[in-house]
Structures are given as C-alpha cells and as structure tokens.
C-alpha cells in the first residue's frame, strides 16, 4: 500500500485500534487533518484548547487502560499541550502526542510557529521522537505506542515536520506488528529470591500495613491485591492515586494516607513494624517528614521502575517487577507456606486500629445551615450508588472527593495527583464519558479550577457527552486559603476572586442545564434531577461553606503522628494531637 506521510499516521492509528484522537488543527498539521477528513474509523474530538485535548486523552487512558492519543499543531498548539503532557507524566499515564513541526528545511531558523517541541517536552515525557523521514513514520509510531504503554507507562511525543506528511510523496506502508528497542526491556517477573525473603518478612510481621497506590491501578492488579490482603487479613491504606485499587468499603481498608489521609491510616503507618509497599513512590504528600517516616518498619517495595525504589525512603527488600506478576508470585509462595501470621499479634494490632478509627476523623457538621462540601460528595456517592466515574480538579474539593466518595473499583477515580493541575477535571470528564458512554460521569470541581478549562463545555455539547459538573463553590481558592490560615496568619493574599461568573447562566450559554443550590436540603433533589437528565450536561453550582477546611492535615515538615484534626466543626484551626 502506497500512502503519504499524513495518511500513514492516520492509517497507523486505525491499525493500532485507536478509537479517539483528541486534537486541534493548525498549519503544520493540515496535511494530517486532510487525511483525517477521508476516513471515519479514528474519531476526532475537536477540543477548544489544546490543554483540554491532553487532559481528555489522559483521562480516557486512566478510565480504560488504553493509551490516549492527541494531535496538535506546531508552536502554540504544542506549547498549549505541555501542561497536559506533564500532568500525564507525573501520574505515569500512557499517552501518545503527535505534534506538527515546521518543515525540516526550516527547523532551527525561528520559522513561523516553530518551537523546539522535543527540547521543551524532554523533561516531562517518557521519550520523544522527531521524525525526519516519511519512511520512518510507521516504525516511530509503533515505538511510541510500545514505550508509552509498557513498563512504567508515560506520555511519548512524536514531532512530525510538515513536509514529512506531504500528500504528494507516497511510500509503501505496512503496519509493523513487532518492534524491538535494544535499550528498552521493561521488567516483568520479580526475582524469586526476593519474593521468598519478602514473604518471610510478611508472615513474621506483628503490626503490618499494606501501602498501595497508582501502580496497582496502572498494572491492573486490583484482584491480586484484594486476594492477598484478604488472605493475610492485614490493614490496607491507599494513596490518592491508588483509590479504588482496593475496595474502600471493605473493612480492612483504613482509608487514604498522607497529608489529608485518615487518622487511622497515618497512625498505623507510624506504629507499624512492617510495610508492604505496592506500586507507590513514597511521595512527600504521603510520607510527611522523611526523618520520622515509619520509624519502626521493615519495608518491602514492589515497583516496576527501579528508580522509584529507595528514591526518598530506603527500603529493605526491593522487588522490581510488574505488580500483577509479582503479587501472583507472592500469592503462590504464600499459599505453599506453612507459616501463618500470628493471630494474637494481629488481633492486638487491629484493636489499636479500631481505637484510632473511633476518632471519626472525617466527621463534619451535619446540622449546618450552609451547604458543607463533604455533604455534597456524600450525597453524590449515594445518588450514584458509588458506581460513577469521578474526575476532579485540584484543591479542597479534590480532597473531599477522595475522602467521601468510596471507590470500590479501580479506574473510577480520575485526578491529577502528581502535578496537581487545576483545569484537569472538565476535559477529563469528557474523555471518560467518551470511553464509557453508559456510565455516570461527574466532575467534582471548585469555582477557581473550573475556570481554567471551562471552554470545554462547548466540546461537551458538540460530542454529546452528558457529564455532571459538581461545582463546590466556596468563593475561595480554598486550598490556598487553608494554607494561608495555617501558615500566614490568615492573610488571604489573592486566594479569592472579586468577580465570579454566574455559572448557571454560563452553563446555559454553552447550551447546557445550569442549577444553583444554596440550601442543604436542596442538595439531594438537585443531584437526583441532574442524573435523571441522562442526555444533558448539567452544571450544579453548590454554594458551600466558605470557611470549611480539609482535615485531618499533616502540615508540611511534620510526621504522620502529628496530624491536625478537626474538633469543633467549623473552627478553622484545631488543636494538635500528638
């Protein structure tokens, strides 16, 4: 088959089984867009800003496990995509970004709309390519998809100069079934000796905790994680990125850990003598003060990326490998093993955890006459029967979503954890809805975050992706205000906006349904109405308590044992529990 470069890209995407291409046209990709025009297999989603394309593709990947694919033009199109590429990179999301580039002959001459995309994205991609020959397109695309989706996943940029997609230059095309990169062989199974060592430690633990995260979601190992956790009857905590990898409603789940984690999860970590860390990267939001992190624990760490191991916290038994394979290896060793965990030690450990649980650290004022953000999430959980896909933006609302929506399944909780990108939520919801048209999809956001990619409301109309936008409108950049209360004597420097749009009118202007809710008793009916409107995007503007803060909180520089808890609901700063 003889095809032009532009046609090869599109034919390749089709052969790769790509369903959606999120993009925005421009000069450098016009040949490509012309090739798109002539086919129906790869559906193009025209966003309103390239950042939206990257977040939508990223969320599509998070919700399905398949790579998200983006197409942007050179120069400003490419730079607009960078925030989304970095977002995907920080959370290890498989994505392929095709960017147009100026013709090869003028690269380096400050040509119109030229930026060094390969240079700009180098620190925030797993790898990137500049294609210099039309004969290399198919193989480069194959490499890009292979690298993006294997090992520790991540975004890969393929930068294609305009002349390489010239419709007048045709070359033979064949889908490359296999590819080999001599310098790249992602780990698979764990080292058997390490597995045995780990199982021995695991079975000898007196106060064990399983600390698991995003790697379990990325590695599709929820079933294995659940099995091993049940088999051992050990307490388990998840990172923000791991929520849903283990059912949150299960009694062994002690909640999220870290800065806004539960009292029981953080204290269990602090008091533990053994940690089984699975697909986590010991992020500073999780560990708190490193010098005080898990002072008594022996740590086993399973991760596919050797660089994640002993990066911030030195571990005792590293296991490099894919989480699904390694957990299966551990399970078979465990099942053969004669030893069982000490029942006595474990029941003593559980009773301590139960005591911490009784603190009820997430409790909030349920009798308030203003809407509490937590109450909205709780009701959302009930109305959607805990089975919705929830995307979120960044701020207090994100933490309330993580704490109050109990995810029982993986890939349901879609948020930007590592980069913390405001503006992620709405385009992400569109990407998820395209992936799962029958599912309920809600975006939990704040009045500041939603304005960062609000233009994607227009995309939602065009592609009929009826998502529900849950705007927890506290008239503050709440998360910023909270830090200013804790660390800057409540000097609210630029953490609020003097003007906030009328979101109901705005939603209507974009062709959607807008609802404003101001009273606690109206929360439930509004949610029910919104989800009953199956084929409409509904924007619910909840006017929430301006003063509410996220608790527990580990202030920066403190350890797990130094959480600040809410005592009297509504008081901004509460006493410290040692």
């Amino acid at each position: 088959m003889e095809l032009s470069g532009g046609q090869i890209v599109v034919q390749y995407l089709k052969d790769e089984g790509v369903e959606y291409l999120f993009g925005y046209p421009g000069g450098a990709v016009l040949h490509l867009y012309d090739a798109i025009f002539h086919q129906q297999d790869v559906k193009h989603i025209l966003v309103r800003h390239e950042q939206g394309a990257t977040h939508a593709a990223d969320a599509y990947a998070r919700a399905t496990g398949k790579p998200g694919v983006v197409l942007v033009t050179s120069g400003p199109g490419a730079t607009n995509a960078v925030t989304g590429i970095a977002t995907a990179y920080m959370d290890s999301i498989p994505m392929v970004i095709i960017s147009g580039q100026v013709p090869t002959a003028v690269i380096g001459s400050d040509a119109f709309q030229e930026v060094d995309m390969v240079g700009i994205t180098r620190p925030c991609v797993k790898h990137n390519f500049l294609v210099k020959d039309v004969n290399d397109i198919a193989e480069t695309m194959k490499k890009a998809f292979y690298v993006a989706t294997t090992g520790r996943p991540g975004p890969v940029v393929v930068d294609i100069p305009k002349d390489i997609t010239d419709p007048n230059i045709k070359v033979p095309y064949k889908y490359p079934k296999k590819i080999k990169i001599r310098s790249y062989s992602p780990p698979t199974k764990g080292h058997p000796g390490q597995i045995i060592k780990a199982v021995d430690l695991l079975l000898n633990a007196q106060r064990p905790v399983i600390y698991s995260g995003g790697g379990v979601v990325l590695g599709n190992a929820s079933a294995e994680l659940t099995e091993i956790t049940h088999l051992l009857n050990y307490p388990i905590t998840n990172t923000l990125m791991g929520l849903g990898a283990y059912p949150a409603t299960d009694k062994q789940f002690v909640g999220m850990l870290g800065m806004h984690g539960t009292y029981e999860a953080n204290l269990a970590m602090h008091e533990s003598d053994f940690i089984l860390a699975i697909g986590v990267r010991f992020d500073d939001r999780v560990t708190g003060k490193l010098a005080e992190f898990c002072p008594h624990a022996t740590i086993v760490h399973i991760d596919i990326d050797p660089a994640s191991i002993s990066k911030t916290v030195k571990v005792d038994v590293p296991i490099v490998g894919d989480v699904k394979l390694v957990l299966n290896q551990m399970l078979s060793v465990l099942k053969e093993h004669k030893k069982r965990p000490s029942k006595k030690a474990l029941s003593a450990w559980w009773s301590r955890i139960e005591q911490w649980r009784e603190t009820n650290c997430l409790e909030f004022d349920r009798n308030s006459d203003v809407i509490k953000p937590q109450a909205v999430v709780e009701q959302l959980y009930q109305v959607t029967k805990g089975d919705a896909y929830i995307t979120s933006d960044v701020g207090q609302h994100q933490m309330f979503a993580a704490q109050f929506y109990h995810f029982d399944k993986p890939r349901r909780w879609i948020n930007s954890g590592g980069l913390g990108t405001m503006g992620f939520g709405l385009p992400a919801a569109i990407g998820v809805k395209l992936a799962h048209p029958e599912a309920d999809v809600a975006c939990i956001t704040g009045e500041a975050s939603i304005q960062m990619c609000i233009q994607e409301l227009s995309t939602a109309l065009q592609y009929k992706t009826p998502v529900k936008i849950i705007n927890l409108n506290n008239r503050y950049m709440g998360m910023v205000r909270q830090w200013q209360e804790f660390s800057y004597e409540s000097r609210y420097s630029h953490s609020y906006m003097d003007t906030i749009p009328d979101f109901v009118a705005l939603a209507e202007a974009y062709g959607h349904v807008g609802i404003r809710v101001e009273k606690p008793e109206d929360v439930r009916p509004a949610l029910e109405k919104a989800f009953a409107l199956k084929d409409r995007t509904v924007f619910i503007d909840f006017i929430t308590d301006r003063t509410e803060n996220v608790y527990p909180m580990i202030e920066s520089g403190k350890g797990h044992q130094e959480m600040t808890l809410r005592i009297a609901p509504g008081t901004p700063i509460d006493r410290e529990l040692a």
Partner: protein
Amino acid sequence: MRHVISILIENEAGALSRVAGLFSARGYNIESLTVAPTEDATLSRMTLVTRGSEDVIEQITKQLNKLLDIVKLIDLADASHVERELMLVKVSTSDETRGEINRLSDIFRGKIIDVTTNSYVIEMTGASDKLDAFVAALDADSIIETVRSGPTAMSRGENGLHL
C-alpha cells in the same frame, strides 16, 4: 564520592542532550563528560564523572538507565579501572624558559606538538591528577590556554562494556 560512569549510548541526535538535561533537571553535578562514536557506528561511548553520596549515585545510575538512548552503563567505582585524560597546553616560551619547559614536559612524558618562536603546544595524557600537577609546575604566567578532554576510562581485566 567521585564516580566514573561509563555509558554506551545510541549515536543519535538528541541523545547527549537527554543525559545533560537529566543532570540539570535533577540537580546532579557533572564534573566532566566525554563522548565519541565507537567502532560500531550506531553507538557512542560516554565517560561521565560525577560526585554524590551513595544514594545520589544510585539514583543517577537508575535514572540514566531509564533513558531510552542509553543501551548499557557501568559505574566504574564498582570495579578496578584505568583512567586517562588528554590535555593540550599552550605556553609562551622565550630563549630563557624553553629549556626548563622542555625538561618539565619530559618528566611528565609530554609531547611538544607545535612550536613557534614564542610558544609551544604540549600534549599530555595521564591520570587527571598528573595533569593537574603538570599545570601547577608550569609558571602560571606562561600558560596561554589549556584544554582537557576530561577522563576517559575502562575497567581492568578481560570484561568489557559492549552489547
């Protein structure tokens, strides 16, 4: 601690900048870096000298290994190895100083590879501290310029870094 890391890397545009970019982005220091193609035209060999605690060096080698362009690497601090650096020094000469400079160069096994009425270019290879010593022995005012390759290195014995 000082570590010498020997690297086989794809001989491709952009490969070097990935290595340099990694070091600057992660705040690792590069003391020196040499790179040139090998007998296999698809590969370059790089010698990188860096300093850091054991933890930092461990991260450096892990992060380097993640770069797709890097085919293989070895931390030579783990093995006994030889190191050689090349230096060219241009010194000003006069009838009075020429003899002394000749003698000094001989002692350090230097070679004079360019001569004008009032200058020499001296070529010298050796361990970096030998080159330092030679520079220190010269009259500082006579040095017009120096250029050093940075160390290149390989392990002792029959094992080698290859595909």
